[in-house]
């Protein structure tokens, strides 16, 4: 059942205790973004050292899906190069939009968000932070 998948334990764990979560002030934020369907608001702070993401932190909370997606994302992209991160972004967005089907190995924990594709409105929730990361990388490389 897709619904049960949507609220699997790993998602709930990240929702309850998001990773790399903590206050990001207006000045610190690399980007902020929000979900216009509900007003949920995210701030993302990303730092590069050399060609690696050396630090990533987010602030603001959304629903279980958007929060856990963001939490897992931060874990996943930490230490990666921007181009590796970009590949992950398009892989993840493709998965939730149902346009591509990456293997579970390449996704790790994030694979649990696959069932989002059965709930069109939640695609936005799951994708929000990834889109924000994409904008953040644009900004840092500009």
């Amino acid at each position, binding site marked *: 059942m897709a*619904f049960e998948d949507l*609220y699997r334990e790993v998602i709930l764990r990240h929702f309850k205790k998001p990773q790399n979560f903590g206050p990001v002030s207006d000045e610190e934020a690399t980007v902020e973004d929000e979900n216009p369907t*509900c*007003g*949920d*608001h995210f701030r993302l702070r990303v730092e590069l050292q050399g060609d690696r993401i050396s630090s990533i932190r987010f602030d603001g909370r*959304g629903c*279980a899906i958007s929060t856990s997606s963001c939490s897992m994302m931060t874990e996943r992209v930490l230490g990666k190069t921007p181009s590796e991160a970009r590949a992950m972004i398009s892989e993840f967005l493709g998965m939730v939009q149902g346009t591509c089907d990456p293997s579970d190995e390449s996704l790790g924990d994030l694979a649990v968000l696959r069932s989002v594709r059965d*709930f069109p409105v*939640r695609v936005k929730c799951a994708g929000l932070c990834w889109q924000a990361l994409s904008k953040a990388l644009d900004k840092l490389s500009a």
Partner: protein
Amino acid sequence: MNALNTERIRRDFPILARTMRGGKRLVYLDNAATTQKPECVIEAVCDYYRNHNANVHRGFHQLSEEATEILESARARVADFIGAGSPQEVVFTRGATESINLAASAYGAAALRPGDQILLTVMEHHSNLLPWQQLARQTGAELCFIPGREDGALDMDAFQQMLSPKVKILAMTHMSNVLGTINPVRQCIAAAHSAGARVLIDAAQSLPHFKVDVADLDCDFLAFSGHKMLGPMGIGVLYAKRELLDRMRPYQTGGSMIHRVALRDAVWADVPYKFEAGTPNVAGAAGLKAAIDYLEAAGMDRIFQHEQELVRYALQRLDALSGIQIVGRAAHRGAVIAWHMKNVHPHDMAQFADQEGIAIRAGHHCAQPLVVRYGFAALSRASFYLYNDRHEVDALADVVEKTARFFHGL
């Protein structure tokens, strides 16, 4: 007054028999967004297309005569339903949003000078906020907002303080689509008139649920949507006093709204046609008329009574749950309830409800400043109508409790 026979009413709405995902029965509690349609409304639309469809006015053939009669009798029915002095005070639009845009543009633009004030409330739907923001920018007028009290009622003391000869327009909702608050519009209109202001009432959430009479209210403009009162989509109304309509410039221009046209200028038609450019939505008007017939047969007072009982019961059930915060506690209220449940995001709440076949809404409900004012980014909302019953309230309360348990138990 005998009570509404909900069981019989439910049979008039084909969609209520629908089975949702997972075999669940539909429990439709998103009526503030749009309402379901009884068979007689669907049938009125079909009958129009199957038997009478034509373009109206100017047509000398029988179908055109019939279509014109359908459109104009719908207009007369609306006028009668809202207590307008004449059908000419009823302008058909696409919906409340367009009605308000029309009024703001065709009346407001000529009526305001820099430094004038437009008075709104903090509880406006975006559709009764953004057109005035635009107008303020365009004319140099200032926007002022009547604050809300903690309980969700309007702060009437503040309102009285804010009235001055600078206020030229008061635009306010009759009933909040989030808090459920029913505002004392009659009193506000009288006070605004004394200060020399014109008043637009956004009746999108009130007119479908209880008797609204423009003559009694003495409002200058009234806006509402057909789809929120059992009618079809794509049809709505702007009521305005005749003397105002006569003075107003047209809004959109094109076919049907003219008296004479030359290459470089034109003479406008009389009201209300001056404001109805292009081919009107006759099928929509036919459906709206059928909806009004249905509502009046059920009885507006009975509908209100029924909803009052439902909302009292729903508040009682929801209040019994721990961790819940109901946003909107005004004494005079309609059957819309917004809440926040501790540790449960409204998206997840709505998703859990959907899993049980229960349609509720989550988000800012097109009233973002209001939701922010009460300290939230998003809320869950259930809204009721004449076909809802106590079993559905129970189903709602059960799923709210179940969802809370699920997230609290993490």
